[in-house]
């Protein structure tokens, strides 16, 4: 993962609640065995019209939304399945940050592991950004702030470890592999202290 310190972009709004992972990437596109190339199917059934052309009703197809890397979405974004194809598709489509007042756990965890900022704001601040799309924001990962065009800053919560990994491009698998000796010790200890079951012969 590349280090991510800042996202600077105008916003586009998706003012719908409960945007689920089937909306973000329909299941029929999950037969891929790659991570790359899913951007063309991001929001597929929403974004394209029946004839395959762009659906003008889809908010991200509007002229003013072009080039926006920050999406402000309604409450409970990313609910539904655990498919990591959802953040892969959004990143490949050019989105670098999603802001909502509530983001589903698994989606958020998947997003942050791939360098897609998934930011939860309090209701009132979220509402302000949702109601006023098109403004230029600066998201500062180190400071955990979103700075608006008028200079105000909204703070957001980001787990210290996730922040560290984003800022330094740290790969979490490497962190786990470094704990190998502790995992060995745990396997020994668990066998003694609690009932463990081998799952295969």
């Amino acid at each position, binding site marked *: 993962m590349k280090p991510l310190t800042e996202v600077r972009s105008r916003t586009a709004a998706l003012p*719908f*609640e*409960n945007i*689920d992972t*089937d*909306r973000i990437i*329909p*299941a*029929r596109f*999950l*037969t*891929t*065995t*790659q*991570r790359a190339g899913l951007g063309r199917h991001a929001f597929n*059934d929403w974004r394209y019209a029946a004839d395959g052309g762009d659906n003008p009703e889809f908010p991200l197809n509007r002229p003013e939304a072009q080039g926006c890397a920050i999406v402000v979405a*309604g*409450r*409970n974004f990313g*609910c*539904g*399945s*655990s*498919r*990591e194809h959802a953040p892969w598709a959004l990143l490949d489509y050019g989105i670098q940050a999603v802001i909502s007042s*509530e983001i*589903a*756990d*698994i989606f958020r*965890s*998947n997003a942050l*592991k*791939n360098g897609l900022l998934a930011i939860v704001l309090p209701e009132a601040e979220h509402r302000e950004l949702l109601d006023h799309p098109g403004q230029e924001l600066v998201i500062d990962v180190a400071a955990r702030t979103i700075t608006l065009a008028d200079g105000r800053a909204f703070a957001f919560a980001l*787990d*210290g*470890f996730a922040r*560290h990994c984003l800022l330094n491009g740290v790969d*979490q*698998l490497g*962190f*786990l*592999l470094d*704990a*190998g000796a*502790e*995992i060995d010790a*745990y*396997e020994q200890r*668990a066998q003694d202290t*609690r*009932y*463990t*079951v*081998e*799952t*295969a012969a």
Partner: protein
Amino acid sequence: MSARTIIDKIWDAHLVRAETADTPGILYIDLHLIHEVTTPQAFTELRERGLPVRRPDRVLATLDHSTPTLPPGPDGKRPYASADAENQVRQLEANCREFGIELNGWDSDHRGIVHVMGPEYGATQPGMTIVCGDSHTATHGAFGALAFGIGTTEVGHVLATQCLLQRKPKTFAIHVDGRLRPGVGAKDLILHVIGIIGVGGGTGHVLEYRGSAIEALSMEERMTVCNMSIEAGARAGLIAPDDTTFAFLEGRERAPKGADWNRAVTYWRSLASDPGAAYDSEVHIDAADIGPTITYGTHPGMVTPISAAIPAARDDQEAKALAYMRFTGGQALTGEAVDVVFVGSCTNSRLSDLREAADVLRGRRVADGVRMLVVPGSVLIKREAEAEGLDAVFTAAGAEWRDAGCSMCIGMNGDIARPGQLVVSTSNRNFEGRQGPGVRTVLASPRVAAVAAVAGRIADPDAFLEHAA
């Protein structure tokens, strides 16, 4: 030590390293279930880094999402929906061979939906941590396991290290007391619960279902309840193990035997939440308030008793959902013409679910113009159902009796409905387009679904069956 919930106990027993302000905890995983859709990229990563699978003996693989539910044609070829779907299955076969993982493939009796396979084997056991690259992993919580869905990057973490980086979730007690009314089952119960706490109500929490109505449920019913925890936003939901749990597990292929069994049961009994243990959230529900329940919108929190009118839209979001479903607030849902009925999925594809649907269909016919698919959760369930003649009931009624798999729950294998069609489905998600572009999905129990198939419209099962008797 102070009073702990079952969630605390399982969590504490699996900590390789405790969390700190700066770093998440390292949680050991006992059982890792994998399938073809969410693993190829994880194996690629392992290969690129030259890493082995740390504990292949703790991984069980199956084929379910992209697999056809129709048998091979005369040429012996399976009717995959696409070359990509077939390739994905072949990749999992190759990955399992290369990394020494046990695959329940095309020739296995245990091939089937990943969340049906684990319990059926007795591989799913109380007190375990269980993960799978699939959000309905919570199903295994029915056994008193801490089971949750993970993304593909995390699948790679578990393959390589048998561990995950996790922060401890919050706890949420869902108390359901009293007795369910006759004809009301686990699916009605969980839809009712989601309607109360909302689709985001469980976010950040693990749910513990408790109370006399929960204790009275069979293991199959408990699986239906825990399965849909994610539909309330919770990554996991569980039920403390008890005699019902142990009776289900005893004698299963992967369950402990002999002295091991006795030791295991002693340990499992110690897992229940201590009296007085505190939860971050709690809700109390009276089982007697629950009737046959059905969804009318585009997320599983938009539920109503089947006999009630659809509530008026409270905001733009609900208005949009109703417009998609082509329903209007205030109208009755009963009487709506149905195009397709699907009985299957990890929510409702076990033998008891098939029996429930067959009880309605026996001696009756699927209404003209309605297509009904019945898809067992595993090869074994298919065989058991056939041994008791359920397949004959379904086919005599005019329903399609298929091979095991996820099928129309997710529509990845080509089993989908057409745009605009109304599907009454025993699965777990009614999202827009889940069962095919433009398809309208109504979630219900096997009983309600089977009644809809016979009536050709959504009908109150009590009124319909009484009238028809």
